[in-house]
C-alpha cells in the first residue's frame, strides 16, 4: 500500500501533474515508435518492389523504370506514412492504458485519468487514494523500458533497398565512374553549349536592334539551352533532343509567320494567270478563224454573210480601232503577268493603273469590255490566297461591276477607280519586318540544326551578313564544325563475303546484337558496334541489298550529326524490320531513334 501524497481533506479537481507528465513522455515515445515503425514498413514495402523492378529491368524483362517515378513513389509514401503517424489520433486515455499494459500497472493510470475526467473530487473516499496511488506509480515508471525505441527489421531492409535503387541510378552519374568516352561526350556538349550560347547572344542582340520579336525569343531559348549545356546540366542525348525540339519549334514558328503572308505564292499566281491569258487568246483566235472560214464559204457560194457576221465590218475601220484598245489592255495584262512572275509590286501597280486608264477612256466595245472583264476575273482568281488577297477582292468587285451594268461613263469611272485602288494595294506588297524576322528565324534554326554555329545571320544589303562560310554572326567569328559523335572512334564496316583487306578490326554483329546493345545503353550511342547486317536478295535475285551499321565518322566525314542520324535511323529501322528482334527490344530501339530525332 502506497503512502498518500495528498493532504487530507483536499477538495476540487485532483492534482495529477506527475501523471500528466508521465503521459506526455509516453505519448512522445509512442509517436516516435509509431513514426519509425510505419515509415520503416512503408519504405520496406515500397522499396523492395522498386528494387525488384530495377533488377528486372537490368535483366531486360521490363523497361527501365524512371528514377524520378521510383524516387517520387518512395518519398511520397514515406511522407504519407510520416504524416499519418504524426496525425493519427492519440488520446491521453489510450496512452495511459497502453502504459498500464506495458508497465503492469493494472489500469492505475488510466483509471485515475478517467476518474479525473468524470470530475471526481480529489478528497472523495477511495478516489483520493486512487489518485495518490496513480501519481506514485506515474513517478516511478520507466518509460524507456516500457516504450523502447527499437529499430525493427523493416528499417535496414527498406533503407538498403532504397539505397540500392538510388545507387543504381546515381553512381553512373558520378565523374569517377564515367568512361573516357562519356567524359569526351560531356566535354563536347560543354563546348557546343558555349558555341550555342555565343550564337544565341549575338542573334538576340541583332534581333533586338532590328526589332525581330520571334527571332529574339528563339535566341533567348537557344541561349538558355546553351547555358545548360555549358554547365553540364544535361547530357548529350538530352542536349540533342532539346536542340532538335528547339529547331523544330523555330521552323514551325517560321512556317506560321509565313502562312498569313502567302498561302499561295505569287509565282503560282503568275502561272495561273498566264495560263488563263493564253487560253483566252487561243479561244479568241479560234473564234476569228472560224468566222473567217464561214465568210469564205459564203463568199464562194455568192451569198451575203448574215448580219451578225457582217457586224464588225459595218463600222468604219473597226479592226484597227479594236486592236488599239485591246493592244493597250493586253499589254497591261501581260505586264501584270510579268510583274507577278518577278514579284514586282511596283510593276503590278503600274499595270493595274494602265488598265484602269483604258477602262476610264471608254473606247472599248462591249465585247472588248467582256474580254477585259473575263481577264480581270481570271486575275482576281489567280491572286486569291496570295498576299494580294485584298487586291484580288477589289478586282473581283470591279469585274462584277463590269459584268452587271451598262457601261456608261459613270460606271466606267467607278470601275477604273476600283482598279486604281487595287493597283495601289498591290503596290504595298508584304511587310518587310515580318519577312526579315521570318528569314532571320529560319537562318538561326538552320544554323543550330546544321551546326554552322558561326555562320552569319543573313540580313542582306547591309554588308555585314552574307551566306559564305567562315564568317561569324554579322561578320564576326571563325568557321566551326558540327558536333561530332564523340563515341565514335574507328568504326570499320565489314561487308559480308568480302575479305576485309583494309577494314581493320571492327566488330561483326547482327541486328539483334545491335538492338540488344541499344537496349542496355542508357544514354545514346556512345559507341555503336560496327558491323554488317545480313543482306537480302531483290525480287529478281540479281541484286544483293545490304545494310550496314556503324558510324559515318569512319570515313572522317564532316557531315553534321543530325544528317547522319536520319540515314542511320532508316538503316536501323529497315534492319529491324528484316531481322528477328525480340518484341520487347523493338520498342526500345524505336524510342531511341524517336528521342534523338
Amino acid at each position, binding site marked *: 500500500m502506497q503512502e498518500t501524497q495528498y493532504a487530507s481533506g483536499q477538495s476540487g479537481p485532483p492534482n495529477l501533474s506527475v501523471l500528466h507528465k508521465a503521459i506526455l513522455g509516453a505519448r512522445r515515445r509512442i509517436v516516435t515508435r*509509431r513514426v519509425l515503425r510505419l515509415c520503416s514498413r512503408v519504405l520496406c514495402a515500397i522499396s523492395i518492389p522498386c528494387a525488384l523492378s530495377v533488377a528486372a529491368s537490368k535483366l531486360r524483362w521490363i523497361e527501365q523504370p524512371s528514377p524520378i517515378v521510383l524516387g517520387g513513389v518512395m518519398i511520397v509514401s514515406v511522407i504519407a506514412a510520416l504524416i499519418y503517424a504524426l496525425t493519427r489520433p492519440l488520446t491521453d486515455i489510450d496512452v495511459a492504458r497502453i502504459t498500464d499494459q506495458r508497465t503492469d500497472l493494472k489500469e492505475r493510470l488510466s483509471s485515475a485519468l478517467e476518474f479525473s475526467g*468524470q470530475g471526481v473530487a480529489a478528497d472523495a473516499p477511495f478516489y483520493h*487514494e486512487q489518485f495518490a496511488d496513480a501519481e506514485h506509480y506515474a513517478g516511478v515508471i520507466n518509460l524507456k523500458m516500457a516504450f523502447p525505441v527499437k529499430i525493427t527489421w523493416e528499417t535496414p531492409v527498406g533503407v538498403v533497398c532504397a539505397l540500392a535503387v538510388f545507387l543504381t541510378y546515381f553512381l553512373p552519374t558520378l565523374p569517377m565512374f564515367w568512361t573516357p568516352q562519356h567524359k569526351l561526350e560531356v566535354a563536347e556538349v560543354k563546348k557546343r553549349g558555349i558555341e550555342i550560347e555565343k550564337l544565341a547572344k549575338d542573334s538576340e542582340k541583332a534581333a533586338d536592334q532590328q526589332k525581330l520579336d520571334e527571332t529574339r525569343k528563339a535566341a533567348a531559348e537557344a541561349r538558355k539551352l546553351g547555358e545548360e549545356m555549358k554547365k553540364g546540366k544535361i547530357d548529350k542525348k538530352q542536349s540533342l533532343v532539346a536542340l532538335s525540339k528547339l529547331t523544330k519549334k523555330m521552323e514551325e514558328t517560321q512556317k506560321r509567320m509565313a502562312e498569313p503572308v502567302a498561302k499561295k505564292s505569287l509565282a503560282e499566281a503568275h502561272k495561273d494567270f498566264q495560263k488563263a491569258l493564253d487560253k483566252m487568246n487561243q479561244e479568241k483566235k479560234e473564234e476569228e478563224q472560224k468566222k473567217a472560214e464561214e465568210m469564205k464559204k459564203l463568199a464562194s457560194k455568192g451569198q451575203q454573210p448574215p448580219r451578225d457576221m457582217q457586224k464588225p465590218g459595218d463600222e468604219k475601220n473597226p479592226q484597227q480601232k479594236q486592236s488599239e484598245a485591246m493592244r493597250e489592255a493586253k499589254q497591261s495584262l501581260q505586264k501584270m503577268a510579268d510583274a507577278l512572275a518577278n514579284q514586282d509590286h511596283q510593276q503590278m501597280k503600274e499595270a493595274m493603273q494602265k488598265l484602269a486608264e483604258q477602262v476610264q477612256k471608254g473606247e472599248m466595245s462591249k465585247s472588248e469590255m467582256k474580254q477585259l472583264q473575263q481577264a480581270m476575273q481570271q486575275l482576281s482568281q489567280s491572286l486569291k490566297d496570295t498576299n494580294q488577297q485584298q487586291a484580288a477582292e477589289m478586282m473581283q468587285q470591279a469585274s462584277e461591276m463590269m459584268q452587271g451594268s451598262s457601261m456608261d461613263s459613270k460606271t466606267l469611272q467607278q470601275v477604273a477607280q476600283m482598279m486604281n485602288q487595287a493597283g495601289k494595294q498591290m503596290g504595298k506588297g508584304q511587310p518587310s519586318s515580318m519577312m526579315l524576322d521570318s528569314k532571320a528565324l529560319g537562318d538561326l534554326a538552320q544554323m543550330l540544326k546544321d551546326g554552322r554555329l558561326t555562320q552569319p545571320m543573313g540580313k542582306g544589303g547591309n554588308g555585314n551578313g552574307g551566306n559564305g562560310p567562315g564568317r561569324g554572326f554579322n561578320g564576326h567569328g571563325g568557321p566551326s564544325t558540327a558536333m561530332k559523335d564523340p563515341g565514335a572512334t574507328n568504326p570499320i564496316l565489314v561487308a559480308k563475303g568480302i575479305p576485309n583487306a583494309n577494314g581493320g578490326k571492327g566488330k561483326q554483329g547482327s541486328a539483334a546484337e545491335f538492338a540488344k546493345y541499344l537496349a542496355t545503353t542508357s544514354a545514346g550511342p556512345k559507341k555503336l558496334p560496327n558491323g554488317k547486317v545480313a543482306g537480302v536478295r531483290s525480287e529478281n535475285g540479281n541484286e544483293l541489298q545490304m545494310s550496314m551499321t556503324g558510324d559515318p565518322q569512319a570515313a572522317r566525314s564532316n557531315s553534321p550529326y543530325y544528317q547522319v542520324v536520319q540515314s542511320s535511323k532508316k538503316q536501323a529501322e529497315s534492319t529491324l524490320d528484316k531481322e528477328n528482334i525480340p518484341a520487347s527490344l523493338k520498342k526500345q530501339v524505336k524510342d531511341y531513334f524517336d528521342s534523338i530525332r
Partner: protein
Amino acid sequence: MSDIERESVSFIADFNRVKAEISKVIVGNEQIIDGVLICLLAGGHALLEGVPGLGKTLLVRTLSQSVSLTFSRVQFTPDLMPADITGTNILSETATGQKEFKFQAGPVFANIVLADEINRATPKTQSAMLEAMQEHAVTVAGIQHRLKQPFLVLATQNPIEMEGTYPLPEAQLDRFLYKLLVKSPTFEDLATIIDRTTGVPQQEIEAVIDGETILKMRALAREVPMAPSVREFAIRVVLATQPDSPFAPNSVKQFVRFGSSPRGAQAIVTTAKIKALLSGRFNVALEDIASVAVPALRHRLILNFEGQAEAIEPDTLIEDIIKKSQAETAPKVGV
C-alpha cells in the same frame, strides 16, 4: 495513512487470517477457499461441485469455525420438505396452559448454511431454499422471518450419480454468485491430507473475525471505484455470453443457447472489486474482471444441443470471450 488505506490494509489482513485458518484443515484448493471467502464478502452464495470425498463439507464447516458464525448443515434428500429447511409453526403450550403456534426456525436460520447435495431434493424444497437465498428471509404462515446477517449458503452437488436427482433449473442456478469446481487433490496435496488425517489430531480452528467485521468488509469492498473503460469491459464480457450479441465470439454463437443475465454482471463487478482490494489497489483492473469471470459465469451459460453433444466446457467459452473482449478493447495506438 488515510482511513480507507487503513481499512484496506485491515481488509487484506483479515482475509488472509481467515484463509490461513481454513488452510490449517483444507489442503490445496486455494482457489476454492478464495472463491468461498469472496462469496462471503460479496454477500453471495456459492455452488460447489465435485465428487464425494473432496472436503467440500469440511471446507464449509472450517469456514464457519474460523469466522465465528453460526453454521448449519442440511443434507438434501428426495423426501426433504421445505419446512424442514425453513422451519414451521408448531402447537405448543404456554406457561399459563394456553396453546399457541410457535415458530420453530429451520436450519436456514444460520449465518452459514451448507446445502449438501442440493440436487437430490425435489424442486419444491429447492425453491424454498433458493427463496431464502435471494430474499434473505423466509415466510411461514404469512409471517416473514428475516435471516441472520451475514448469510451465506454453500450448496454442493455431485456431478456423478445423476440417477434420482433433480438438476437445478437455470433460474435457480442464477441465484448463486459463484460456481466452484472442486478438483481432486494433487500428489503433494494428497500426501499432506494423509499426513494430517491419519497422524496426530488436527489443529484447532480459531475464529479470527466475526460477522460484524465481515459486514464492514463487505461495505468497504462495494466502495472500490471502477473506471468506465473497465466497466465497459465487464459489460462486453457478459453480453458476449449471449449468442445473439455482436460481441459474442463464434464459439458462443455455435454452442450456447442462453447467456448470462444481468446478475452475472453484478457478480463480476462485485467480486472484481474484492479482488482489487485484495491486490492492494483502489481501482478495479481488467485483470480482476478476467479472473472472476469464469466462476461467476460458468453456471449461467446454458449450452445448446450441439454444445452438450460436443461436451463443450463453459470455462473454455468464457476464456474465448475474455480473449476476444481484451483484443477488442485494447487501445490501438500503432506501436
